[in-house]
């Protein structure tokens, strides 16, 4: 606790607020990313893309095949005029290919709508790429601010060296404390993000509902990503600790 108290000055706390906002931004963008994926799946799962009209070939018992795929079939019926023409609607567009592949040569496909990229879906994919690019820029910002935090620790490092701490000791306690700091910021921003969405939905429920689509895996992934700039700043601080002379503390104040 003393170490924590000794190295966290006002400046580091202020940068911490900026980093908090950076995390919020990354969560929001990731959430939008997931929303777009959800929309894309909805487009791909339109009724037409999950439905086929087939006529079984001779000697094929269609009921058997349908039974095997019972779980994936939403509904099916046979044509009243000719009870050999079947219309099958699957639950997911992926099931169509599965069914046909499994039952190769069993059926003559009369009607099948293959998914064509619509213009909306193409644009959604482009928006996904834009989100990724902005996320990379945010990570770069995160690096810049992490390095700024580290650069503000020069005086503290010099003081500890002056008192007689070994390099390893200084490295250890600075890195551990900074890492805990980042992690606490991360957790706090998750909570803020979650409650902001809730608040937004309460205030603007008639306008557009924000879906909260981040799960634990997403957060773990984002944490792992944001570790890159953090570790980069740690490498710099290790380098700094090795090089920084306590005499500079004396010279900087005098």
């Amino acid at each position, binding site marked *: 606790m*003393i170490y924590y108290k000794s190295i966290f*000055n006002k400046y580091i706390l202020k940068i911490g607020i900026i980093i908090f906002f950076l995390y919020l931004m990354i969560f929001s963008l990731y959430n939008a990313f997931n929303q777009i994926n959800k929309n894309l799946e909805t487009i791909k799962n339109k009724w037409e893309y999950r439905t086929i009209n087939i006529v079984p070939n001779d000697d094929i018992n269609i009921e058997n095949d349908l039974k095997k795929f019972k779980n994936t079939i939403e509904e099916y019926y046979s044509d009243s005029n000719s009870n050999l023409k079947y219309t099958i609607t699957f639950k997911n567009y992926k099931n169509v290919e599965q069914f046909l592949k499994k039952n190769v040569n069993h059926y003559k496909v009369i009607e099948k709508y293959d998914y064509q990229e619509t213009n909306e879906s193409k644009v959604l994919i482009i928006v996904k790429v834009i989100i990724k690019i902005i996320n990379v820029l945010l990570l770069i910002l995160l690096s810049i601010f992490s390095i700024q935090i580290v650069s503000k620790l020069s005086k503290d490092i010099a003081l500890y060296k*002056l008192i*007689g*701490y*070994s390099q390893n000791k200084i490295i250890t306690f600075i890195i551990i404390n900074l890492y805990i700091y980042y992690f606490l910021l991360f957790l706090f921003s998750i909570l803020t993000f979650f409650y902001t969405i809730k608040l937004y939905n309460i205030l603007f429920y008639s306008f557009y509902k924000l879906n909260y689509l981040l799960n634990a895996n997403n957060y773990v992934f984002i944490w792992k990503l944001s570790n890159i700039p953090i570790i980069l700043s740690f490498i710099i601080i290790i380098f700094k600790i090795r090089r920084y002379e306590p005499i500079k503390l004396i010279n900087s*104040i005098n």
Partner: protein
Amino acid sequence: MNLENINKVYYMKKNLQVLKDISVSFKKGKFYAIMGASGSGKTTLINILGLLISYTSGTYTIDGINVSNMSNNDKDVFRGKNIGFIFQSFYLNERLTALENVLIATFINKELNRKERKQVARNILIKLGLKDRLNHYPSQLSGGEQQRVAIARALVNDPMIILADEPTGNLDEKNEKEIFNILKEISTSDKIVIVVSHNPIIKRYCDVLYTMNKGILKEVKHDF
């Protein structure tokens, strides 16, 4: 502590020789004072003594150990265990209380446990008259009190060498006397105390007096 032919040259456009052939020995149980005009090299000398900067040529040994063989990290560790440094500007951590400022110095000592560390830090602060100031921050302490905290921090690991660079530079007369008294007392307990100062009253306290003039160290015989 033994210095033989220590030279310090700063290599710049015009080479600046700050210390010229300094040879001197410091023994335990004595209070050494180094006086001189500003720019004479006293701060450079004491920084070399405190293993803060390196010298250009010569030998510096402490208890037979040649300092030039040490890496920077080794010097830091050695300093922590064996040298207590006191500065004109105190160099306390503004965000820690007096007790905590002294406490962080005790973490080097692996032999003490948590309780013992706190006890040692408290004792030394009480001994220096700061019993009521343990939980005050440096901004809440007077100049003299801050310097005493700095001295406590320098002493807490019981180092054999105490170095002070203008310890009373920022203090008033009353506090000056107090600080020199403390330093004198420390020197009697079998430690080497070296103080750099341009304050003439130091003559009353020191056992050996040196003067520094343009990089040359000379002993001065005087009456106490």
